């Protein structure tokens, strides 16, 4: 096993900024949804809007960065080897079999990751940003798109938020599936990982 640089500075910055934004948006978002009271409604709304704006810029910039740097190729879904990967997660990992795919800086994602992140990066998160902006500027959206009510926008936004939580739960758990429990976490902090 050798330790190589797997995640560049921007990737790590993006990841952790995204972590901060999504945590903030989730906590404040569900307060706005009246699931609980924590920061106070007005604070929750203001923080949610600012974090939402910040996150939108980050996401747009990241998509731009991915296209220009060619990084997007790593997020294209493939079915090749997906069965092996699935077998590994359900059986092989229990028996401490080696990972079926070796990470390289040009190909960091296994087929299941590719599929998940493709859905996340190109659908779930952008949809959340778009519905969020429509929600925030519903008065303008009304004039431009003839949006009569924020109802479907808000419902979609809520549903997507739940889906993001589901992603985060599984994602956090998957961090522990490296060759040691904290190997992947260290990788995303230092950028270097043993492969």
């Amino acid at each position, binding site marked *: 096993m050798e330790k190589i640089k797997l995640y*560049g*500075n*921007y990737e790590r*910055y993006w990841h952790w900024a995204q972590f901060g934004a999504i945590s903030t948006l989730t906590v404040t978002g569900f307060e*706005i*949804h*009246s699931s609980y*009271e924590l920061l*106070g*409604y*007005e604070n929750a*709304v*203001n923080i949610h*809007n*600012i974090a939402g*704006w*910040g996150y939108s*810029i*980050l996401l747009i*910039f990241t998509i731009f*960065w991915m296209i*220009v*740097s060619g990084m997007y190729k790593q997020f294209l879904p493939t079915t090749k080897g997906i069965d092996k990967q699935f077998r590994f997660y359900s059986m092989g*990992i*229990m*028996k*401490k079999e080696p990972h079926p795919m070796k990470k390289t800086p040009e190909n960091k994602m296994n087929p299941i990751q590719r599929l998940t992140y493709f859905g996340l990066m190109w659908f779930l998160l952008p949809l959340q940003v778009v519905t969020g902006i429509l929600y925030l500027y519903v*008065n303008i959206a009304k004039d431009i798109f003839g949006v*009569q*009510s*924020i*109802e479907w926008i*808000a*419902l979609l936004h*809520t*549903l997507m*938020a*739940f*889906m993001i*939580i*589901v992603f985060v*739960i*599984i994602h956090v*758990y998957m961090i*522990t599936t490296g060759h040691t429990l904290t190997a992947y976490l260290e990788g995303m902090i230092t950028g270097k990982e043993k492969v």
Partner: protein
Amino acid sequence: MKGNLKERLETLAVVVLLPIFTAVILFQLKQTTSNPVKPKAILQANRQIAADHSSYKLLQQDFTDPRDVTEACLTCHTKRDEEIMATAHWRWERETVLPDGREVSIGKKNLINNFCTGAVGNNGSCMRCHIGYGWKDKSFDFEDPRNIDCLVCHDNTGTYFKQKGEAGMPATKETANKFYSVPDYNYISANVGLPKRENCGICHFYGGGGNNVKHGDLEESLLDCSREIDVHMTSEGIDMQCTDCHLTENHNIKGKLYSVSAMNKNRIGCEQCHTDAPHQNRIYDNHIEKVACQTCHIPTYAKGNGTKLWWDWSTAGDTKDGQPYHESDVDGNHNYLTIKGNFVWDDNVEPEYYWFNGTADHYVTGDKIDETPVKINELMGNYKDSEAKIWPVKVHRGKQIYDTGTNELINLKLWAKNEGEGAFWKDFDYDTAAVLGMEYVGREYSGSYDFVRSDVYWPLSHQVAPKEQTLSCKECHSRDGRLSELNDFYMPGKTYEAYIDWFGMISVILSILGVLSHAIGRYVFSVKRKRKENS
């Protein structure tokens, strides 16, 4: 080369992203702090009258009839009589198109309400609040300018009063008693001016037979009140008069009261002084599209004194040993009067909230009752109506007399000077009062009556609270907040779809269970593996 590109992109990211981040966040932060627009108010009511009326010979004559005072006024103030005679203050009715297209002329003159039920036929008492002299019956001449009472609005001495039971006349030598003396017309006419709160209040505070019976947000405590009761009219602050908002030109006073009005015309808006983006906070200001200013800024009404919320006429007429009696609640307000029935009063009342687009439907006298409670008026509007906003409303509910034969509300003869004239307030006989009341307005009465529930809706605009007491977000943006009855739109924090919340929660729980069982699986296998290695 590739590594180079990556490094350059990273530099670009830092150079471009950080400033954009900072700028947007600063901009957003700025919009969350509010720095309200300073209102530009010109307080017209405080304008001084230039002319010294005490120097006019014309006003120093020996007046015995108040009509002669009016004539003296009109000598200089020519054509003012024509202005007055065109107003609803004089005519007590207005040409109106109702929301359903009906063209009617409605007003206090002919509408039935669910307080004292109606003025017409009870002129001696009710027309005390008419700006004329002696509208005691149908013979009153609406075309005679001498019948106009200039003083009731323009007296600035506080000594001019119309006498009780005299159809709008002040006391004369013949009628003066220990409560009402003949006004000193020379003193009063020397001290006329623009109407003050006292002038408007004498009718608009006490309508319905007592202070704050009707409006709930308009009552005598406004004459000298704290900031907590009304930020505009408070004597601790700007001390505004009614006509500072109810701007008046040629005796046409701005402002609408929807218990007698129906059309979206001649209304007052807060934006007259406060602009249409008063908060300088984007989220607050966005609310203005769908929420009336009053909704957040009048969290409670009837702050100085209680207001009547329920009036049940069906219990009226009960006597003790043949004598009328009354009972009071803990606050000292009547909750039973032989002449009027049962009441419920309350103070510091939370308004109810309705969509309202500035138009109202009315129960017009003679309409058939097609729903109960009868809607004496109905505020129109809903979420999709671009003119409609959410308004705070006082709803006065009651039970009043109707004709079971014709299925119409009844005009009652309530008031008379003496017993034996058939008035309910003297003789306590509903049947006779109905016969006489209906006869006076020329309507048919079948001879059988009962009582029916009826509601009237009064949008609130007065008793604006200090900004510290404005409604907080959570008052409405919560599952069972103040707007829980308004369900025709999605509102953050209030509306939710149970299926989405359930689906979401179950997905989250399943994913937690999934990773937990996977983790347990890994642990169990690793323990087994270790045992195998050891054995």
